[in-house]
């Protein structure tokens, strides 16, 4: 089977089978990352552009390594230059397309920017985070990591904690987890829980300890200090007391609970250092798995050459 989509903008673009296809394909790519020579010739001659309108280390590097391990040519653009000069997003993108970019990985502070590009371009567009909307490859790598440890996704209780309101990671994760049959609890200060959450089929908690009972997975979110003023909670110290994951809180969850964080971590705020580095933590596995999942997405979306007719005379192997 194959993906029916040209672009990956939102987890909602996928159906359950497509989601599984991406995870299964990533299993195979994980093996490539474990080889001495971590490179396969699959995307030779394809061009991938990392178009980042927001700072990023992990996601950008992860996509870069994924593309390079597939032998694609990769260009990194931190797009402040064209923004400063007043070029519109579409013009920047059209120029990249004029240089025959096959896949464009976009991160943008405005929700909907990647969707706009996807509509206007023949290149495949991958959303690497748009505003508070979605970050689909993060959700995919989270699911991949959970599945690797728990052997299943169905019937798990996953607690997502922190600033749900501003978190694209949480939005993508919630859609993905619901799709595969996990039950999701969210917990955070009332000011950080979006109103429309009732329509997402999740349980809402305001007391962390309560939410943790019977939890299989805890997904801690980064407190995005740079993204908003501190008007949503009185002090960082209070936030940390109420919503920081400590060893004591960890003991409220199941014994084999998995602790995750999309990074970068604010140590001592949303997660205590001993928990982040502890045995339950899968945080560094998430980073490793991120490369494999992004290789799978690049491979599957690069799919059929979109503008070329398919040769009916092809000889089978």
């Amino acid at each position: 089977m194959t993906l029916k989509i040209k672009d990956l903008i939102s987890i909602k673009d996928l159906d359950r089978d497509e989601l599984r296809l991406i995870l299964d394909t990533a299993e195979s790519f994980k093996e490539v990352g474990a080889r001495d020579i971590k490179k396969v010739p699959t995307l030779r001659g394809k061009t991938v552009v990392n178009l980042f309108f927001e700072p990023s280390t992990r996601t950008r590097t992860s996509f870069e390594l994924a593309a390079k391990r597939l032998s694609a040519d990769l260009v990194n653009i931190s797009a402040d230059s064209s923004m400063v000069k007043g070029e519109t997003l579409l013009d920047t993108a059209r120029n990249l397309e004029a240089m025959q970019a096959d896949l464009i990985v976009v991160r943008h502070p405005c929700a909907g920017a990647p969707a706009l590009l996807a509509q206007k371009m023949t290149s495949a567009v991958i959303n690497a985070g748009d505003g508070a909307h979605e970050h689909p490859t993060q959700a995919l790598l989270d699911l991949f990591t959970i599945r690797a440890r728990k052997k299943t996704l169905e019937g798990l209780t996953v607690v997502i904690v922190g600033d749900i309101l501003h978190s694209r990671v949480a939005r993508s994760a919630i859609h993905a987890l619901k799709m595969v049959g996990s039950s999701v609890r969210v917990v955070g200060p009332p000011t950080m829980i979006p109103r429309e959450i009732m329509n997402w089929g999740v349980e809402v908690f305001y007391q962390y300890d309560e939410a943790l009972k019977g939890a299989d997975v805890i997904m801690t979110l980064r407190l995005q200090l740079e993204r908003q003023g501190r008007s949503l909670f009185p002090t960082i110290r209070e936030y940390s007391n109420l919503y920081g994951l400590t060893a004591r809180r960890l003991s409220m969850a199941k014994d084999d609970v998995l602790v995750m964080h999309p990074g970068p971590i604010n140590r001592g705020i949303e997660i205590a250092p001993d928990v982040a580095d502890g045995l339950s933590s899968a945080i560094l596995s998430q980073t490793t798995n991120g490369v494999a999942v992004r290789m799978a997405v690049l491979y599957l979306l690069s799919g059929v050459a979109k503008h070329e007719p398919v040769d009916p005379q092809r000889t089978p192997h």
Partner: protein
Amino acid sequence: MKRNERIVLDSLEINRALSRVAHEVTERNQGLSDLAFVGIRTGGVHLAHRLAGRLKKIEGVVLPVGALDITLYRDDLYKKREQPTVRKTEIGFDITGKKVILVDDVLFTGRTIRAAMDELIDFGRPREIQLAVLIDRGHRELPIRAHYVGKSLPTAADEKVKVFLSEEGEEDRVVITNDAEN
């Protein structure tokens, strides 16, 4: 479903062919210590295990068996309408310095073998690569030849050769069809 199917090898004949190939392997390679099998997914992996099992019986030597998925090395990836499924390559031993016997079910254009050799060499530097196939059906498009052949089968280019194996829940058999839909 089965239109125009013709069985060319049955279970007994497959087993005889594999036994003969196993003996040829021992003849060609004096001392089996440096030998290893690598099967090409999916059929080749089962055949590699069967050959290793026979060598264990004949010579009492247990040889390592690996599995190769060549999807990422194909030369026709972007000519296909559907993106092929990527499966895992699993080679749990160092191939450097080894005589590696690549195993596949059907040798046809030779393109799969080209891909397999390229992939194998990314894993190390084997001393030698030999090729064993159950069926050689001709129509080569690359200068590639097998060292061990279970059966040479003259075919027309538009016919299809399919190998069914018990490991996949099928009855062992090799069939030719000239049903384009298959």
